[in-house]
């Protein structure tokens, strides 16, 4: 198990990366748009810290945190966001379309869920004992293909963990306007056991995930983890329709960095902060100096 310092490092790396992204966006270094993981760091770190090298992750539009918690390289991600040929996808994918080792993301909501389910099944068919973890938001529960996937995952016992990050909002739409009934039932209705957790504490999530990923691996069967969580930033950039007070309160009460950071000796923590900030800055600077791809230089 990664120690508290290491877990903190992972959390803060995501935090600092995402803050840098939002801070630097207006300067025009990045292309397109972005969906930052601010506030949800404990989910990715708590869950993905259990992964073994062969395990597979399928992520969505809000993928930076997942990618970094998976072990993805800061520079490769900055470079991707900046559209450089050194980006993890050579600048072709951009923020939402990442692939690195066994990590995959795509920007069409819901469509990644059957994909992940198929990957889990393939690993089972190939007897690799690898676990597949896939993330989806509360809003993504609106997409029908999610349920097609849950049904088949249950019928064929896919070794997959579905992680719902319920931040109670989809872009600007509150969960009350978009999710009828309740989330756990949507998994148990298909025969997929489900654990629900309302926490921003990486240790609590880590412990819950340990159990579920263990079950997925041992029993080669699907599980779901519903994480009630908080989005601190805008959906993408400058598009937060919630009241500032509401967001301030979330940041005060539910900050994974604060919660877990308090477990560290403050000098140690400061040292980690400094080193992470440096790591992030260096990756940013390095990416900024990298070349951009041109069509003629790449295979059609």
């Amino acid at each position: 198990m990664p120690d508290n310092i290491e877990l903190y490092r992972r959390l803060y790396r995501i935090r600092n990366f995402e803050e840098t992204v939002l801070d630097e966006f207006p300067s025009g270094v990045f292309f397109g748009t972005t969906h930052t993981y601010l506030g949800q760091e404990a989910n990715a770190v708590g869950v993905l810290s259990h992964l073994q090298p062969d395990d597979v992750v399928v992520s969505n539009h809000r993928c930076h945190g997942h990618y970094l918690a998976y072990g993805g390289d800061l520079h490769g991600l900055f470079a991707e966001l900046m559209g450089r040929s050194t980006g993890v996808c050579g600048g072709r994918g951009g923020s939402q379309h990442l692939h690195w080792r066994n990590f995959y993301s795509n920007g069409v909501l819901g469509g990644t869920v059957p994909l992940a389910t198929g990957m889990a099944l393939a690993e089972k068919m190939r007897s690799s004992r690898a676990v597949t973890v896939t993330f989806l938001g509360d809003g993504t529960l609106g997409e029908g293909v999610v349920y097609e996937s849950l049904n088949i995952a249950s019928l064929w016992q896919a070794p997959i963990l579905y992680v719902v990050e319920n931040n109670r909002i989809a872009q600007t739409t509150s969960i009350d306007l978009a999710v009828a009934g309740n989330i756990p039932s949507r998994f148990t209705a298909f025969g997929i056991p489900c654990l629900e957790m309302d926490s921003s504490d990486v240790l609590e999530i880590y412990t819950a995930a340990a159990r579920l990923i263990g079950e997925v691996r041992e029993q080669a069967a699907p599980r779901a983890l519903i994480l009630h969580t908080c989005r601190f930033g805008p959906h993408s950039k400058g598009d937060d329709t919630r009241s500032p007070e509401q967001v301030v309160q979330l940041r005060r009460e539910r900050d994974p960095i604060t919660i877990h950071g308090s477990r560290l000796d403050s000098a140690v923590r400061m040292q980690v902060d400094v080193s992470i900030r440096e790591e992030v800055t260096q990756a940013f600077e390095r990416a900024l100096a990298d070349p951009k791809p041109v069509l003629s230089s790449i295979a059609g």
Partner: protein
Amino acid sequence: MSHVLESLNTALHQAFAADERVYLLGEDVLDPYGGAFKVTRGLSSAFPGRVLTTPISEAGITGIAAGMALRGLRPVVEIMFGDFMTLVADQLTNHIAKFRWMYNDQVRVPLVLRTPMGGRRGYGPTHSQTLEKMFLGVPGLRVLAPCWIGDPGRLLAQAILEDDEPVIFIENKLLYLLPVQDENALPEFALTSITYPRLPEYIPGYAPTYSLKINQAPAASLTLAAYGYMAELARQAALRLAYEHEIFVELVIPTQLAPFETEPIIASVRRTGRLLTIEEGTLSLGWGAELQARCAEVLGPRLRAACRVAAAELPVPASGGLETEILPDVNHIVQTAQRMV
């Protein structure tokens, strides 16, 4: 001078005021956000209860809107990005487009499905496509594309209020902020607007084709055909061709993409003998393919030169320079035109 976005937004307000059977369904369409591209801004405040923000269920809301349309309402659906039109392909093709004919003309499906298409914003492969070509060959669907010329808002309002057929309404993202131009705003050009009063279900003034010629220019030796935002690039190219290369063109801009009404384009090509089609989607089986095929069929060897400018046959990359390389631009148009005459 108002922008295309404003014109469309105003038209929605007018349509809602004019007919209480008009509803709108879409993701994140409520105020204060007012939709990802703000086309619906203010609508939910002005018409509460008739603007329905939906779960992220593109197929579901399209099917629901179809049901509403079959039962006497006039729903408008907003699909947040045109890239997700793939998710509504079944509802459009196997349900909405078929009902009228399959049910022996006993029903109508007056539904308008609006969606923004196009790149040049760095959104990457799944948020930058121009996919309308998938639906241009589906019998039973009308596909419209407003332009910065004429009256985009009127096109939308007529689609909502007067057209009883299902309509796909394609809005290019970069078009939104172009100022709407009428005749007077285009001093360099002579503008003609053509409609089709002979069509069986003709609606006066609906879905015109525009034709632009440079004032006092010699006879055109090439027809350019383009729609939506690409018509603006074609207009720029037309000026450059005239002033820099002494190549004079006629630019034809349909606002109805399907069913194909190619008469004005063919009429122009009869005069010029050459057709250059311009579109933002990928080349193969794009809008231009059908135009070229129809011209070749009708004109035979009188079609002396045919070319298409379109996107390279690749996903739209996120990286800006790469994206620019892949999408068609004014240079492509100018260079291709030069090669053709």
